[in-house]
């Protein structure tokens, strides 16, 4: 019951920032629009020939789907808020209440994502309307949509656990932003935000299949667009599930270690 109220609280908190979100999502569209022009020039130079099995329309669809997935599954500022709670000692107030802080953040996360997407979806709808003729609709049936949705939820969980674990570094370090940004840069290139990972060499893809990054973004979108079927799909879902569990365990471990340090210092 109390956690349902927290969910509602999360929605209210997020609504305050609707103008902020709307502007953000317009800015967020700019690199994707830029990337569409880059690919357009590339397909033009190739005389329209496909790139590793992607037609121009499929590439545009991939980039636009990525925007939606990002809006739904990528934490916005959660890590900075958690780190600030730790650094500025606001955590003490939470420890007095009958609420488990990581659970509290885990509930805030989807409510914030939903409200955020309710705002940011409109610029994306506008982009879809403009690009309509260059898009291909996913051909998979209802089953594929469900698998993609489950995979997207797991992707969101992996991203959340990574953000949370990075934020707990604030228990040990005064300044965590460099560490967070270094992690971001790997995430940015290896999660498929910039280009679909299956245009890369087989060796790259084999390594990437074991790392958590592609399960943060690329994987659910690839499922939706029908790039994955049969054994690789099942295998990928297993690895993704494993990363969710590893993420959860790591977060828990870092949290309890950090907390004992926090309480020892706070004395």
């Amino acid at each position, binding site marked *: 019951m109390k956690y349902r109220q927290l969910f509602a609280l999360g929605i209210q908190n997020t609504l305050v920032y609707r103008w902020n979100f709307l502007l953000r999502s317009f*800015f967020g569209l700019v690199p994707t629009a830029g990337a569409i022009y880059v690919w357009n020039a590339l397909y033009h130079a190739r005389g329209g020939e496909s790139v590793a099995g992607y037609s121009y329309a499929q590439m545009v669809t991939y980039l636009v789907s990525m925007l939606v997935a990002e809006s739904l599954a990528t934490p916005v500022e959660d890590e900075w808020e958690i780190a600030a709670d730790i650094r500025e000692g606001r955590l003490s107030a939470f420890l007095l209440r009958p609420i488990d802080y990581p659970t509290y953040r885990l509930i805030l996360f989807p409510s914030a994502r939903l409200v955020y997407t309710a705002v940011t979806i409109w610029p994306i709808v506008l982009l879809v309307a403009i690009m309509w003729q260059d898009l291909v609709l996913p051909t998979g049936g209802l089953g594929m949509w469900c698998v993609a949705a489950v995979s997207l939820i797991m992707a969101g969980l992996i991203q959340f656990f990574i953000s949370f674990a990075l934020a707990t570094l604030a228990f040990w370090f005064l300044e965590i932003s460099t560490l967070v940004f270094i992690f971001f840069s790997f995430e940015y290139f290896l999660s498929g935000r910039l280009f679909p990972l299956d245009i890369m060499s087989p060796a790259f893809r084999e390594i990437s299949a074991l790392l958590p990054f592609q399960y943060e973004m690329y994987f659910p979108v690839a499922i939706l667009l029908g790039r994955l079927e049969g054994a690789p799909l099942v295998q990928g879902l297993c690895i993704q599930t494993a990363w969710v569990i590893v993420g959860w365990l790591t977060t828990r471990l870092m949290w309890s270690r950090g907390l004992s340090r926090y309480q020892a210092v706070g004395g």
Partner: protein
Amino acid sequence: MNALRKYSEVYGMFLRNSLIRDMSFKANFLLWIATELLWFFGQLLFLEVIFYYTDEMGGWSKWQIVLLIGTHQTIAQTFQALFYMNLMNLPELVRTGKLDTFLLLPIDSQFAVSSRQLGLDNVVTAIVGLAIVAFSAVKLGLHPGPLTLILYGVGVILGVGVHYAVMFVLASLSFWIVRAQGLMHGYYSLVSLSRYPENIYRGLFGFFFTWVIPVILVANVPARLLTWPLESPVPGMARLAVATLLALGASRLVWRAALRRYGSASS
């Protein structure tokens, strides 16, 4: 003349303080350099992927675009060395009311809020950008004369002006919008457009980011001086100069409006 001496003395003090601060947090200083370089080489990696599938984009060869990206890096990092941290701080100054201190100083308030701290790590990464430019110039067999090099330098400085205006306006949004800090990452989204050849952008989008928010011009104009030595530099440089002056003028107007709002809000 007196004013100039006063401002350069104040600036010398800012520089000295920044140097002391950076050298007392050496590990952090080095980590920031590593982070910036990681992003930069990530961009070059993406270019490598693109040019695996084509030999030209919008009429530019791979090394010409590397030169363009190096120019972008030089401009962006010079801007960040001079102004970035200060502008990132502006929303916090507004929120906490610490801006008052800056308004009382006997120097121009826009100058004071913009240039108090210098990022010396960005000086290092700007030099790396310049080295990449030199390297690709050698690869392309370019032999720019002194006049071209001087114009290139002027183009880079004008580009820094555009970066400044874009980020300054974003930072000033904090006078009207709650938690504008996150919005400021929009800077990266906007300027990311200048990494690619101007002529791949088309339609309203291309027009808007060339003439209204002139980010596409920024790296393209100076890079073109080197990559197309036979072209007349006048039209490009004239466009960039006009665009920079307009952008800086706009930042001044926004600052005036922001201060009016700040004054009326606190009374």
